[in-house]
């Protein structure tokens, strides 16, 4: 287990930002952290990055307590805040070298390490550019380069793709996949849920400082029952016959006719596809396609959260 929080609670005066949050992230996973604005994502990430002290509870990174072993945790974690600040009047290379020095990397190794992360983040051509002259996308990449400079085991990325154009977002996504291959554990928050869906192994949904759900995407679909829906498309002439046949099957709860297809609800999702196929083939219905009904993460998010924010 790389990240663990136990009854993590954080209060700002009267306001409770986190309430007994229990979270676990395994080594090498990409964990998507989702929640409405003000749900407590950034607070959780800041506690894990040793920037905030929890009011109650404990948080561990790589088995080390963030409160008592701050320095070791900082060595393990690379934290990229939601808004990346840059120093005026520093060049890209100098900026990264500064953070390399701040992470106690010996002077002799700094040059090669900085060049390595510049190559990884595709910023080699910008190494003499002033950091404050970079575009937003470039600055986000530079932020990623910065968190990689000390080769941390854990990356905590708060909205790394916010405000980026589609190309830059795809590039960041590819970079994260690359980092996963390198064995990094990544905790990432984003409002662009479709992107998280593509790269995350696990997802945590937080609302009002409470973890509403945590698990794999498959577990979400199971919880929401999306596996028990099948989308069936048959030739138009056989549509009525297909409805009649399917309604007669005891495992099928309901058949809903939609514009171009039929939506079949099952009591047991495991057997759905085969039952439909057998029934329709046996009834001599010409099938165009049978596919499980896909639910998007956005829809799952809407169903699991109630839109409660602070």
């Amino acid at each position: 287990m790389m990240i663990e929080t136990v009854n993590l609670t954080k209060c700002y005066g009267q306001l409770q930002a986190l309430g007994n949050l229990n979270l676990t992230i395994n080594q090498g996973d990409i964990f998507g952290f989702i929640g409405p604005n003000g749900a407590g994502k950034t607070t959780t990430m800041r506690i894990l990055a040793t920037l905030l002290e929890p009011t109650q509870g404990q948080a561990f990174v790589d088995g080390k307590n963030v409160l008592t072993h701050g320095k070791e945790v900082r060595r393990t974690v690379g934290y990229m805040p939601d808004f990346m600040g840059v120093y005026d009047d520093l060049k890209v290379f100098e900026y990264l070298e500064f953070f390399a020095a701040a992470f106690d990397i010996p002077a002799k190794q700094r040059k090669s390490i900085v060049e390595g992360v510049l190559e990884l983040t595709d910023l080699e051509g910008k190494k003499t550019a002033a950091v404050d002259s970079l575009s937003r996308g470039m600055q986000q990449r530079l932020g990623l380069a910065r968190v990689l400079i000390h080769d941390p085991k854990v990356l905590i990325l708060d909205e790394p793709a916010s405000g980026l154009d589609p190309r830059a977002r795809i590039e960041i996504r590819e970079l994260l996949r690359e980092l996963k291959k390198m064995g990094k554990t990544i905790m990432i928050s984003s409002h662009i849920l479709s992107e998280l869906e593509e790269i995350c192994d696990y997802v945590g949904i937080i609302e009002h400082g409470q973890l509403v759900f945590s698990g794999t995407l498959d577990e979400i679909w199971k919880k929401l029952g999306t596996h028990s829906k099948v989308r069936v498309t048959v030739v138009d002439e056989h549509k009525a016959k297909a409805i009649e046949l399917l309604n007669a099957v005891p495992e099928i709860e309901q058949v809903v006719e939609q514009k171009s297809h039929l939506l079949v609800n099952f009591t047991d999702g495991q057997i759905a596809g085969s039952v439909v196929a057998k029934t329709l083939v046996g009834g001599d219905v010409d099938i165009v396609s049978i596919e499980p009904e896909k639910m998007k993460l956005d829809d799952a998010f809407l169903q699991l959260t109630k839109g409660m924010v602070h």
Partner: protein
Amino acid sequence: MKHTFIDRVYDAVTLSWLTGPIFSKELRISSRRKRNYFLRSSYLLILLIAILLAWEAMVHSYSSNVVYRVSRLSAAGMAITGTVVMVQFYLAILVSVIMLSNAISEEVYHKTLGVLMSTPISMVQVIAGKLLSKLLQLILLVCLTLPILGIVRVFGGVPWEYLIKSFCVTLTAVIFVGIWTLYLSIHQKHAYIVIIRSILGLIVFFFVAPLFFGWLAIGELNVDDDSYLLCVAVTNPMFLMAMLMVELMEPRGMPFATNSWWIVHCLMMLGISTLLFIRAVTVVRKKALLQACGQLDDGGKTKRRSKTEKLGKIHHVKGPPVLWKEWRDSRLKMGGAKRIIACLLVTGSILISYAIFENENFLDDDYCHIMYAMIFAGLSTFLTAIFAATTITSEKASRTWPALLCTLVTDWQIIWGKVIGVLRRSTLFWGILVLHMTIFILVGYIHPAALPHIVMIAMPVAFFTTCSGVFFSSLFKHTTSAVVANMIFVALLWAGVPFFATIIGGIFFRGSDVLIETVVMTNPFYYLIEVLDDIAGKGDASTSWSRLRYSWAVGGKMNFIEATVLLWVVASAYIVTGLGFLKIVKMRLRKNIV
């Protein structure tokens, strides 16, 4: 929507045609900002102290005889009025600089300037709205003293004419300084840099330029002294106010009569202000257009082209990273050419002043060097206070603070890196004081013993001011708040406390100076004055080391060794207090991270 006749009349009366909705928005925001209340309270407090001081000096301290006091009322009236008017004049200028230091940069930084461009609000309304909303608050402050001055006038001796003249000169000066600061805020996002530049600009306009032209006109072109002074009075509100004060207190000492010249001055200041206003409107319009088109970066600068991005050499990090970064940070954000011009201006002004004073045979006088030392030390303290107060808040503002705190750099490395960086930047300014001393020691106008003593006075002042600045920087979120707090703290400590001590001593310790004497013995500026008073000047400069005598307010006369020990004790006290500030900074460094 059509405007009715009544709407138009209302607009004309309330000046909303000139200011638009910006004016009311600014007034609304002002009422919600704590620092405005703090500024106003400080303004009134300082005025109150000035009145009490003038009263104490002119009436209370002379005698307990009621008849005698009544006979002094007319002189007290003049002194109180003159003091209030002068203090108010400088305070109003300072407050207007602070209030308008982020007038436009705030809009640029929050990216609302481009948004304003897409509304029917004109740029004239933006500038006028910003300017008038701040000036209105200031004018109300200035007007607050009118009833006091009216009451004081009953004592006699103060003509109405003086009040009207000084009020008009103050008003036009405040308008000019306000527009000047607003204009500077278009080009710079950091309010504290605007404050420094605005004050330096005013020093150049109203102190350095008159000195230079005076040297040129009187010394080189043989222009008549009185004619030149009249020219300065017409163009320089500071000088005109000083002349009005002389006219009030000692009419015979006037080199010329102000007559209607003050009207010419006021009209001229308004004319220059109008030109600056027009220029500000043009520049802001350009900025707004650039921002609306996405051509302006977060700092309000035009986005650089890729060619310029690639210029320059990479400087590799050496030693502790925070110290390396702070060491190379100039903080004044001046480019190479501007820096050279600034250095030339400063050096030129100092040399010209030397030439003028040499001509007047004043350079061998101890008071001349006290004056120089106070100016150099005052300015250096002022700049050190500003640099120190920006150290942590600027990281918070640029959002680099969390990134830095996530590294392995320890809290003490960060704090000491910041402190040493500030000391390094301010060394240049303190160096001018030391250089001045060295030159005149070599010339033979100051005793060599002054040099180690001046260093022993300057060092703890710089360190203490830096530590208090870093403390305020860790306390506040905004740079301007930290800068203003540190400046006020330093001013109160070394100027305010002695004033208070004088008043309290005068009231409660009649006939005894024990309180003020004790207070000044903790004040490094007092030691600066005393050291130079005792061992500077042509007569004292050649005294042998064993015969050197320092007379302090407490402890009587001391020789060089005793004086050195005393200065070490005072310096140590300031250094220990400074370390105390740093300890507090360490405790709260990781609190309230943005």
